[in-house]
């Protein structure tokens, strides 16, 4: 199969995963994201070395999909493999490095008690034990980002490996 075959299948699976996510079926959505990530990774492997821009975009997409599938091991493994490739374009290197960094998420629900750095929180979307993240910091919402929201969030947490980055 070609890059386009794998990539087109990945896109369809990711669209279905997003739609499934919105229905609340998180487990099935994760499975679909994992299948999308597998296809995008295969698309990356199907590309010749000289397709630099396509390789960069596809690599970043595949890692992002592994994060959405909450398979952080696969995400990190692929990101590291791509970063070892000296031909990987600069923009992709930058995004791949940032993919393993703490990132920011809005939390719209009020926690039962105050949460600070170092505490673990259960994301609460599923009963899956993996949905627990360590808070590395608590942030302040900028006026600009607050204006984009239909509801004012209660808290902003910075979390390592957070797949729900929305800022």
């Amino acid at each position: 199969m070609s890059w386009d075959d794998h990539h087109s299948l990945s896109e369809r699976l990711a669209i279905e995963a997003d739609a499934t996510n919105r229905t609340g079926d998180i487990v099935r959505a994760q499975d679909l994201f994992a299948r999308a990530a597998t296809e995008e990774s295969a698309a990356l492997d199907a590309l010749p070395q000289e397709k630099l821009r396509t390789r960069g975009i596809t690599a970043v997409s595949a890692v992002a999909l592994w994060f959405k599938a909450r398979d952080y091991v696969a995400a990190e493994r692929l990101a590291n493999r791509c970063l070892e490739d000296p031909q990987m374009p600069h923009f992709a290197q930058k995004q791949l490095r940032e993919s393993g960094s703490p990132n920011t998420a809005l939390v719209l629900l009020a926690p039962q008690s105050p949460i600070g750095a170092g505490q673990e929180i259960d994301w609460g979307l599923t009963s899956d034990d993996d949905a627990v993240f360590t808070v590395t910091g608590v942030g302040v919402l900028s006026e600009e980002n607050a204006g984009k929201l239909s509801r004012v969030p209660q808290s902003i947490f910075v979390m390592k490996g957070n797949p729900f980055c929305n800022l």
Partner: protein
Amino acid sequence: MHERHRGLTQALATSYQEAASVCLNRFHASPLEITLSDSGAEMTAQLRWLTPDARMLGAWANATDTTRNGAYCCVIAGVELLRSLVAVRRAETGTGSDYYVGPPGSGQTDLEDCLRLEVSGVSAGDYPDVRRRLTEKVAQAQRGDSSLPALAGVIGFSAKLLIVEDVQEES
């Protein structure tokens, strides 16, 4: 739109068009003449849309989602008109706000001709608000990556203004 834009399915294009009609309906009636500005050069274009009914307005009651999706519709259409570029694929980066665009026919075997497109919409602001948002989007695109060519596009639904600008690399 889905017939020309490989990055849009029919369902997605229909959804974006519905959102755009709701956004425009907040302030205007169809047809409407708007200003298109591309790196300082201005032209006008006429927008036509079906007036949304009560059901559609209810379905698009979330203002944030509606403005974002309406902006995708208008900015992607504007980039096609101004630059002859079409949406090739959605960027799967987790930031959730941009597309890759390229010449018609691109994206079938690779993405070598593609540019990043940062999209934003301003619902109720006036001309300076739309300009200010464009400045923010350009800065965001510059921070996002500096070696992949990018465009930023902002639609002001109330302001009747769509601006597209190249994102210059940070020096």
